[in-house]
Each structure stands twice: as C-alpha cells, then as structure tokens.
C-alpha cells in the first residue's frame, strides 16, 4: 500500500451529512470500471445528463482537489470499496469529515487514504476557512505532526489511533503483517478443533 505521510492541495467542501457510498460510487456494471468517472457519477449530472456546474467537484477551482471536506457519517451505507478507490483515482487521498461510517473508515485505511476528524471545537472554523478559500489556495495535511494547515498558516491538530497512524505512515502490507501471526492462527484452530469442533469442521447432511 502507498504510505500516507503528507499532502498539499486544494480542499473541496461537501459539507452535507450522511453522504453514502451509493452516492459516491453508484452500482457499476463493469468488472473494471473507470473509477475516476464513477466518482459521484449521478450527483455530477443534471437530469438531462449534462454536467451539473453547481456540483462542487465540477467547479473549475476544485477540479484538482486533493482534500475533501465533509459532514457527519461520511461513507455510510454499502461496504463497497470502490467508494474509496474512486477518490484515489482522482488524487483525493485525504478526507476531513465530522465523522466517518465505520466500514468506510477502515476501507480508507486499507488504501492509503487519511480520514481526519477534527476536534468538535475546530471543525466549524476549519470548514469556514475551506469555504472562504474557495479553492484559491492549498491546504496541507501532515500525518507525522497530525496537523492540517490552512493557507493563512492556521494549524488544526487531529487525533488518530496509533495503530491507524502506523499503517498509513509505513504503508504496511496488512496481510503480510497478519501473516506474521500464522502460527497463532494455526494454534487457535487446533485448540478450537478440540474445544468447539463444530466451529472448525463443517459437514452437511
């Protein structure tokens, strides 16, 4: 996995709450879709199929956004990972939200995308700066120092669990990390085979 250390770029505000993964990437009909095109495929369009100029990521100043700023419960709904891959495909690798849906947050961590939740007291001020800046100057997010910096230099500290920070900073191979415990897994299986055999041995009648 690509590590996440820091990034600098335009921050796009999409401040609604409960943006779900059906909206982020509608169900697709192709085994290998163009994930960049899939991102908000429905919300980007007007009913007649043309681009909606009012949709934030369609606005010229946000075309190359690298940070998305969102409301509460971002990424709720379906567990589809395409809803993270699509952001990666357009170069957005940092999402700053009031809160994240549990599965979505995990999917971010598995793809080198930094999910940031600012302390409640700072979130509003930060969002205001993002809206006022309107894409005219870059923000940066640095995982080493756990800070987000606004164009004027104002810094916002954020918390992240140490285990999540390590995974992102080092770009660790999640499966490789777990496979170091292969002997523990095998031992657990053997113990269960003795203690609760119905868990380990399946057969049908």
């Amino acid at each position, binding site marked *: 996995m690509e590590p996440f250390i820091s990034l600098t770029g335009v921050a796009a505000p999409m401040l609604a709450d409960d943006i779900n993964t059906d909206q982020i990437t509608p169900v697709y009909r192709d085994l290998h879709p163009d994930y960049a095109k899939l991102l908000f495929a429905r919300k980007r369009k007007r009913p007649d199929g043309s681009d909606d100029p009012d949709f934030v990521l369609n606005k010229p100043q946000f075309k190359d956004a690298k940070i998305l700023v969102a409301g509460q*419960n971002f990424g709720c709904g379906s567990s589809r990972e395409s809803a993270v891959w699509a952001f990666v495909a357009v170069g957005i690798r940092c999402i700053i939200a009031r809160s994240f849906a549990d599965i979505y947050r995990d999917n971010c961590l598995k793809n080198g995308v930094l999910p940031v939740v600012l302390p409640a007291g700072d979130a509003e001020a930060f969002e205001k700066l993002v809206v006022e800046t309107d894409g005219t100057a870059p923000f940066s997010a640095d995982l080493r120092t756990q800070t987000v910096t606004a164009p004027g230099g104002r810094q916002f500290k954020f918390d992240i669990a140490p285990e999540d920070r390590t995974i992102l900073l080092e770009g660790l191979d999640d499966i490789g990390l*777990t496979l170091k415990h292969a002997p523990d*897994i095998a031992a657990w299986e053997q113990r269960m085979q003795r203690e609760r055999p119905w868990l*380990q041995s399946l057969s049908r009648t």
Partner: protein
Amino acid sequence: MPQTLFDKIWDAHVVARRSDGRDLVYMDRHVLHELHAPHAFMRLDETKRAVRRPDLTFAVQDHTVASRPGRDDTTNPEGAPFIRAMRAGTQSRNIRLFDIGDPEQGISHVVGPELGIVLPGTTYACPDSHACTVGGLGALAFGCGTTELEHVLATQVIALKRPKRMRVRLDGKLGRGITAKDVALRILAEIGVDGGRGHAIEFAGSVAQALSVEGRLTLCNLTIEMGARSGFVAPDETAFDWLAGRPWAPKGAAWDAALKSWRTLHSDDGAIFDREVVIDCGSLEPQITWGIDPSQVISVSGRVPDPAGADPRHQPAMKRALDYMGLSPGLALEGLPVNRVFIGSCTNSRMPDLEEAAAIVRGRKVAQGVAALVVPGSSTVKREAEARGLDRVFRDAGFAWGEAGCSMCAGGNGDKGKSGERCVSTTNRNFEGRQGQGVRTHLVSPAMAAAAAITGKITDVRKLA
C-alpha cells in the same frame, strides 16, 4: 466481572494482538458474493496467496443475477462478467459456490442462516454491509470491503479495534400486524443513521425475545443503517429450535456439545454497556420512510415533517429529501398513489415475510397501473413458497414472481424503476437513485407493501387485513 455477550464472543475469537495494536479476530464463517469477490480473487492471483480455509468459505451469486424465470448467465448481460469471474475464482480455489441453477442459491444473508452455515456465537465475515443480518441467530458479523475480504481469504482473521457496546432494549408487546421491520424503522427514527456508529448493538427486551428468527434477521439487517457494523439478538431456544436439522448445522454429539455452549451466550446481569437506548414498542404503528435515508421515518398515520421545526443541522438534508421525494411538509403519506411495489431483499424475503404479504394479497388484485414484484430471498424459500401455493396467490393477483436474488433492492441485476416513480419496497435503503435514477422509495414491512400493491396507494395495512 459480568460480561456482555459481545465481549464473550469477541474474546473467544481473539487469536493474537498484532504489532499495530489491533486484535486478530478469527472468522468462523465467510460468505462471498459475486459483486465484490472477483476483485479479491484477482488480487490473490497477483500476490500468489492461497485461501487459508476454503472449507469455511462459501459463495453465492446474488447481486447481479436476473430475476426473470429461465435466467442464465447473460439474462442480465451486465452481470455476466461478475458471475463468470465468481465461478472461475471459486472453482480454482475449491470454494463451495451456490451458483445460478443451484437449488440453494440465494442472497448471502438469507442462505447462510437457512442452511445452518451461520451458527450462534460464531463470527461471520461477508464483503457486504448487511452481513449484520445474521446477528438474528446470535452470530457476530463483520461486513467489510474488498481488501478486507482478501485479508480474510488469506488469513481467516480480521484485524480489528474493539468497538463499544450498545444495548437497544425493546419493551412492550407488538400490536396486530406490527413486524420486526416496523420496530427496526422505529429504532432508526429514534437514534438516527449514525446512532450506533462505533458500537456493536445487542437488541434485547421482550420484543426481541418474542420475535421469530426471521424477524430477528430482519431487525439485525437494519443495524448497519443505524451506523453499527454488528448487531445481534442473544440466541435462545427459539434460535436453537430453528437451527436444528438444517443442512450444515452440527448433528448428534456435536449438536449437543454446541447447544451446551450456546446456552451460555447472553449478557450477564450487571454487564456494562457504553450506551443504552430503551424504546417502548407497545403502541407502535406500521412505520414508513418518507425521505432518502432510512431514519426519515414516520408512522403510517403521521404527516411528513416540516424542516422548519427540525434541528438546523438536519434542515438541508430534509429539504433535499422532500424535493427528491416530491413531498411537502404536513402531507399525509397515506393515500399517496404508488407506481411500483417490491417485496424481497435480505431484509424481508423469507417465508414468514412472504406469508404475511400473501395474507393481504389472497383473493385480491394488484391495482391498475402498479408494477408489483415478489422475489424470494433464496431458491429454498422460493421452492417452499411454491409448495405452499404462495406463488399462485401472488401471480393470480397480478404480481410478477421472480427467481431468487437481490433484484430491485439495489438494481444491480437491471430490475429498477423509472424516474419519478413512487416505489413501496421491503428493502433497507431508500437512498436517492438506488432503485433507479429518480425513483422515490418508501421502506415498509411486507404486509404494508402488499397493501400498497392492492390499493394502488400508500395504505395502513391494518385497514385491509
């Protein structure tokens, strides 16, 4: 110290603590579906990693399969690549696939319980957010994405941080015609779409205890809509009786040993929950969603809320919902004409669901201009329903009777409505565009959906029954 059921199951499955501080939690059962598994198979090919326990892994074709009778791989042409990649990927890895045409094919969350693959106290992984459904049997489910799926295939564990515990106590006794679906929608109305975020939810209280296993599966199905990844009802004799004799359930001495262990699966008296919610369900009416998230719920006799009186933070979303749904504040939903009715999905497609709906439909006709579709959750349910003549009841009334799968729940198989249509549906998500671009979805119980089909408008089923 008194323990919650959640902690008992979690602790019994922790294999090790990983170097990054996460618990490696063993997954007793893993069920895959064709929309997400093919990508994980490709990644396993690239990294040349094997599936650790194909014998604990099962797979279904559900999301993209057509519901039209006589279907094959290409009846829904867009599903064909997924269906074929699934077949190839499971064959080469020796994973049991419930393929199109298999007499036990169906939606993962229906098939796992009904075949006895999922058991009380087991951990269960599925690359689908509605994995939580199987909590109805007292299993601890973890819905996940594709990378996690690959991780489970390769290691049979998930690296997790322990969530907090929440209990939703459902007091009282349900009135006539009130179902698990109404209860779940009511909980959503009370705690919202992120009320359970970061928690595992135990549903308890007299209402949860009195529900059938199918009702509990319905209730737990909507846990993810509350923002929680796992939700469950402590297993009891109702659950054990339901499981006895199912194809993959333990037999003989193994069953006896399992039963003994399952009887310890409850939260101890005095166990501490991080959050507790109590809801009195005694006077609950049929519930229905009016908006575009599953917490935007009112009682069927209620009126569409006015954003002006709501929490300012919710106002923009409410206005957007009203606009999308073509509604205005203060309007009664009852009497609103409907274009489409869908009975099915992992929420409400099991035998009792179909029976409840059939009881309303029997001897009546679908109203003119309404397209009504019933899709059983599995081929097993379909067969059983046909044996009891339910297919005739629905078909005689003018419903289409489909082959098992997800169908119109997410439109992944091409079954969907047209823009502007009002659709009354037994599914779990009323998100914008989910059942077709511009389709206006109202979530209800199967009986309420049946009532809408018969009258052609949103109807309080209690007036029909």
